[in-house]
């Protein structure tokens, strides 16, 4: 741990919508003694010197393969851990869950031809239901995000996958909320 006077250095960060790569970190040996301030104007920051990195084995499971996880625009998540389980949608919009006993179950199957397929906007979950938003569009080739309706919002039972149409936006922006079994 070393202290020094601070100087504002160029700070960069990478968290952009497309998740693109940020900075390249060059290899080399580090010397201590450089602890500039932070982006909040703190004059100097305590520097914690790392020892040699260790390698740890991490238990890993492949929950899904062969179809990309769909959704995840901005604040709307694509993968939702909830109650010890985890929920996600594939490219077709079908909803999956990994149960606590590690079984992967398809909760709601969607079968649409690609030209009619809606994008998954995101997921949210409470104790009993998963809410999934659908619309057309998504990230374009230029990295911009664009959606268009008609959108749908489904409430799907965590237990048996029964779906209720929670909201629908039709052409002309007639948005209605429906509850049906």
């Amino acid at each position, binding site marked *: 741990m070393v202290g020094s006077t601070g100087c504002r250095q160029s700070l960069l960060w990478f968290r952009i919508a497309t998740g693109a790569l*940020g900075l390249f*970190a060059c290899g080399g040996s580090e010397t201590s003694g450089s602890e500039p301030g932070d982006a909040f104007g703190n004059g100097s920051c305590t520097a914690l010197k790392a020892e040699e*990195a260790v390698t740890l084995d991490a238990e890993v499971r492949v929950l899904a393969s062969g179809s990309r996880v769909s959704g995840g625009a901005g604040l709307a998540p694509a993968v939702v851990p909830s109650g010890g389980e985890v929920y996600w949608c594939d490219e077709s919009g079908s909803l999956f869950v990994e149960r606590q006993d590690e079984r992967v179950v398809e909760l709601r199957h969607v079968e649409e031809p690609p030209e009619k397929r809606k994008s998954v*906007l995101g997921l949210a979950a409470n104790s009993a239901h998963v809410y999934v938003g659908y619309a057309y569009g998504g990230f374009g080739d230029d990295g911009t995000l664009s959606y268009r*309706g008609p959108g749908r919002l489904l409430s799907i039972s965590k237990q048996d996958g029964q779906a209720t149409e929670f909201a629908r936006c039709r052409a002309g922006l007639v948005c209605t909320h429906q509850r049906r079994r």
Partner: protein
Amino acid sequence: MLAAEQGWFAPISADDERLIVFAWSQGIGFYQVPLDHPRLEPLPLGTVSSRSGSEPSDSDALHALWDLFVQGQLVGDQVYWRSFYTPPLGLLRSGFDDAQPELLSDSFPTDVSFSAGPGYILTLQRARDAGYHDIGLNFVRTDDSGCRSVQGPRGEALADVALDATHAYWIGTRTAGSNAAIGQNTLNRVDLETGAVARLNLPGIMPDYYRSFLAQDDTRLFLSSDGALLSVRKP
């Protein structure tokens, strides 16, 4: 930016009382939907009305809301974002129901991005040797008690970061100039209290398999790859 002649709803979070969405419909912005009587109720975090249903008159407010939705980071029940369009300008934090956002910094540099963790903000800093040569990146954690820096990537580019209360996890990508094979990815973490760095080995998983973090809970990280979803237990 948006071609929304028709509406859509993006779920953000839910509990047993309400669902919070970003909606593009008669109004645009953040709404709650009471589960016992579904309807759109504007949230203080921000909405603008859209009389025609396509473009609201207040374009600054629209840009601000869209930026908030696309670039915002949700940690617990708090949203962190940087406001470029509407005052207060700077780094902000707010709950969905808060009347006003909290201004964390009005002088946060415009070329600095950030990642929000539980109770802290993480930024990147170039690590340099005594000759001022770049040797990699450090993470700088700032909270109410001040700031500290810990070692980040060395010899690789940074692809993504996930933060929890104790660690910063990152995916590194080996590129030209590093010792290992180009294109190989690594999964790593640094203890934000001690600075200890660990490389996480994923048995049976190809090193170029994982690309980004999708979610986490207390015990697991969820990583995406081309056509796969991985669950990695935090060691």
